[in-house]
């Protein structure tokens, strides 16, 4: 593995950490005060800094360092994570992401912006110091001392001075203790520590450089030889160290092992040393009563203990959920902790629990190509299996042979394999949603509006291809929502709304599709303006009679924008039609509903995967076609009385007293030269873009089935009216109907014309 590969892995991990960072900050922004959330955020920045340091990415390191220092103030409760603070932090997360991208892809960052943020972060870190004691576990000494330290100021001030010390003093001299505080360190490595190549000996040796220390190794967890797991960690250490370097220095020794061990560092006075020395025998981390008389310091330490306990709990959750052998080696103390952690986790909000589980679920990175190859192969398998069962059925009249039963089992297995393989490609929409949070922040900044993004259902899973192609239209729509949808704060207040606008983004599964909804609580669509604009642009005639819905849908027309002035963000008129086209290209639909004064809602419905499709198999002029099931509203057998001629060639069918144009699929696809008799066929009522319904005439329905989508373009060209192809059980190719293009062809746009336009474009 060469350096570049390692670097690539680092950047991949950075992406994950950045996502973690942003989601953590957003949770804090929503009022979550769980110390674990703060820890997660801190961890993310810390990991990025660590990795960046290893690769010598100085810009990244220095920014991450300042960011980390400020976060540390939050972690140690010196800084209240209020809206103001979080705003700076979210911006910092954006800059950190930019810096990471620049480090990977080259280019330049907005230096002024990052410098400004560094100043803001430093101001936050220095701004509101609480006069508390030693509990400032900054893993790296801050450039400027984070806060005045009350209990051990002398020690910390001396921190950077060379101090000579003698090993003869080992044993604890009273007078020395006054100068040099004693720290009690309980260091319980987990097996992860060793798998990551750390070694306890080295850490302890480093620690010994800080001052005199005595080490006690606890071997009580060591199981009998036959039960011993050679990879597990059984020993733990209790170290008592006298140092004038301060607690920070002690902690920094364990900086890179911090997450793979249970670490407790506490300062002890001489009188409490006796109590503390009992510590290793107790599962309780610390006896706080011993410190009561130390006032503020003990309060701070109590908090510190809490933080540690929660860190420990986090590890315990991880342990509990990953593997039982981790539990085994974690020893009694963390076993007890894991018990309580489990309870806590159960009690915690559901998304937090999901958070925890997603954080620990073991994953592997696989090339997408390999997954795709597997998906293709499984597709072949499904087709082959269908062909096999069909030929068996044809040759086996009674249908009871053991071959038949075996085939049925095979069918179930292949279906299951197909589902599992598809699940490999399925990913939560979360990363896309998180990117939208940034878009909202940036646009809000530029437009001077105050916007809050609420997301729901981020863990809804959908095929990776769909996710990848979703980001662009969604960004466009979010921009529109903030730029056009929401009003300026003054206007909002005047309308009796809160100054802060809300944009809500939700995802959910609904009947085999993913539905993504984007709503704002802005002014809604200005229908008079839209109508006027459409008339100006010759999209409609001045006397056109349009329903509200039809007017709303005008915004999806090419070259349409209602913004009075064209801004940098949107309003260039390449917006919604592009959005609509990219959603349609994904096999999706988009709808808009708007209430004047209350805002607009865009609803997108997308297929979960682009590889399979539920379809209705129909016969048209002797040919077998597949109609996507999602397009079909209902099927009906037309009666002669319901068919009405309309002009020379058009025919309408009356359905429950409304008239709906009949579209002869065979005619449109040129399969036959004369119109079929509707009474002999079946009508499929389809919902098309723009809300209108059409009745597609086919000759007969063969049934419903799931089909594997095969590209026609791969070896041939795009065919107007046809979305793709599939292979049926008999091994023949069947074409999948492109309902929307057939419907628009029936509106008078010739399919051939569209094809030539597509070729020209």
């Amino acid at each position, binding site marked *: 593995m060469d350096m570049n590969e390692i670097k690539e892995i680092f950047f991949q991990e950075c992406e994950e950490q950045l996502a973690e960072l942003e989601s953590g900050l957003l949770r804090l922004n929503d009022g979550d005060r769980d110390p674990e959330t703060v820890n997660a955020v801190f961890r993310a920045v810390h990991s990025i800094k660590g990795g960046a340091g290893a690769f010598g990415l100085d810009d990244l390191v220095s920014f991450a360092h300042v960011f980390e220092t400020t976060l540390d103030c939050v972690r140690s409760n010196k800084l209240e994570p209020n809206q103001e603070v979080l705003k700076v932090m979210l911006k910092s997360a954006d800059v950190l992401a930019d810096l990471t991208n620049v480090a990977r892809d080259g280019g330049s960052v907005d230096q002024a912006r990052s410098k400004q943020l560094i100043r803001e972060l430093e101001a936050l870190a220095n701004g509101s110091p609480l006069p508390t004691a030693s509990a400032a576990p900054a893993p790296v000494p801050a450039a400027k001392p984070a806060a005045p330290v009350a209990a051990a100021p002398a020690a910390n001030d001396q921190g950077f001075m060379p101090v000579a010390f003698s090993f003869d003093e080992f044993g604890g001299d009273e007078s020395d203790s006054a100068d040099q505080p004693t720290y009690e360190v309980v260091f319980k490595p987990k097996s992860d520590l060793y798998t990551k190549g750390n070694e306890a000996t080295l850490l302890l040796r480093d620690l010994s450089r800080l001052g005199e220390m005595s080490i006690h190794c606890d071997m009580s967890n060591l199981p009998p030889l036959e039960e011993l797991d050679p990879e597990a960690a059984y020993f733990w250490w209790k170290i008592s160290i006298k140092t004038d370097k301060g607690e920070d220095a002690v902690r920094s020794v364990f900086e890179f092992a911090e997450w793979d061990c249970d670490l407790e560092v506490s300062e002890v006075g001489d009188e409490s040393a006796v109590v503390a020395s009992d510590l290793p025998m107790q599962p309780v981390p610390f006896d706080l009563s011993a410190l009561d008389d130390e006032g503020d310091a003990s309060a701070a330490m109590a908090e510190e203990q809490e933080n540690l306990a929660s860190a420990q709990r986090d590890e315990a959750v991880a342990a509990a959920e990953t593997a039982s052998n981790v539990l085994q080696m974690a020893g009694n103390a963390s076993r007890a902790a894991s018990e309580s952690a489990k309870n806590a986790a159960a009690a915690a909000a559901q998304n937090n629990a999901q958070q925890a589980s997603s954080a620990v679920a073991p994953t592997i990175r696989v090339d997408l190509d390999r997954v795709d190859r597997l998906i293709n192969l499984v597709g072949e398998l499904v087709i082959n299996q269908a062909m096999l069962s069909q030929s068996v059925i044809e040759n086996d009249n009674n249908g009871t042979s053991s071959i038949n039963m075996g085939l049925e089992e095979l069918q179930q297995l292949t279906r299951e394999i197909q589902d599992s393989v598809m699940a490999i490609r399925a990913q939560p929409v979360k990363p896309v949603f998180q990117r939208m949070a940034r878009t909202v922040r940036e646009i809000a900044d530029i437009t001077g509006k105050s916007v809050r993004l609420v997301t729901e259902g981020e863990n809804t899973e959908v095929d990776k291809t769909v996710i990848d192609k979703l980001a662009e239209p969604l960004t466009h729509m979010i921009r529109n929502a903030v730029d056009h949808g929401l009003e300026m704060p003054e206007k909002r207040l005047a309308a009796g709304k809160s100054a802060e606008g809300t944009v809500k983004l939700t995802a959910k599964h609904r009947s085999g599709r993913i539905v993504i909804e984007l709503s704002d609580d802005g002014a809604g669509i200005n229908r008079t303006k839209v109508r006027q604009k459409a008339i100006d642009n010759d999209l409609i005639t001045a006397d056109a009679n349009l329903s509200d819905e039809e007017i709303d849908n005008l915004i999806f027309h090419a070259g349409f924008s209602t913004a009075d002035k064209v801004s940098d963000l949107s309003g260039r008129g390449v917006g919604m039609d592009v959005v609509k086209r990219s959603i349609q290209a994904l096999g999706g639909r988009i709808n808009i509903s708007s209430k004047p004064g209350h805002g607009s809602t865009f609803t997108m419905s997308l297929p979960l995967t682009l590889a399979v499709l539920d379809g209705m198999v129909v016969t048209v002029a002797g040919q077998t076609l597949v109609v996507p099931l999602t397009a079909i509203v209902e099927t009906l057998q037309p009666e002669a009385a319901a068919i009405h001629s309309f002009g020379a060639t058009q025919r309408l069918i009356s359905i429950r007293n409304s008239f709906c144009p009949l579209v002869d699929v065979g005619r449109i696809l*040129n399969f036959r030269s004369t119109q079929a008799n509707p009474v002999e066929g079946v009508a499929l009522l389809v919902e098309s873009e723009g809300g209108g319904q059409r009745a597609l005439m086919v000759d007969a329905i063969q049934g419903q089935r799931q089909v594997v989508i*095969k590209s026609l373009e791969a*070896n*041939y060209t795009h*065919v107007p*009216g046809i979305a793709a192809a599939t292979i049926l059980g008999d091994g*023949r*190719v069947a074409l999948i109907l492109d309902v929307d293009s057939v419907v628009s062809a029936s509106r008078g746009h010739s399919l051939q014309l569209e*094809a030539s336009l597509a070729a020209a474009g």
Partner: protein
Amino acid sequence: MTDLAQNLTHGGRELIAFRIGDQEFCVNVMSVREIRGWTPVTPMPHAPSYVLGVLNLRGAVLPIIDMSARLGMKPAEPTVRHVIIVTQARNRVVGLLVEAVSDILTIKDENIQPTPDVSSEFERTFARGILAIEGRMICLIELDAVFPHSESEAA
């Protein structure tokens, strides 16, 4: 023209010869992936007349071109005795319907004669040379010109 013919056959001087009506044609064997029998195809809407339809080739959708119609002769009436030559060019796989595969030829470049200067569409579009083998005349076909997509790309 001889230079062009040499380039075309460079790297493989084996050709596969097939028969349509009373004429014989050949293509470079390197572009032939397999030869299979005729099975009914699924017709494509709005397709040129020489595209018979598509076929399932082990999961891939394979367009089938009627070579007879493509070369300007009368459209074929496929029977089970017809043969599909599966060819590949420019990452696309296309099946060519012919009456029969007649021969596999190993030739030298100097055996390829330039196409005679006749004023016909066929000569300009498809023919890249002619071969005289044992008293027969075999016409070397340019595959790229046969595929429908190459037309639209040129347009």
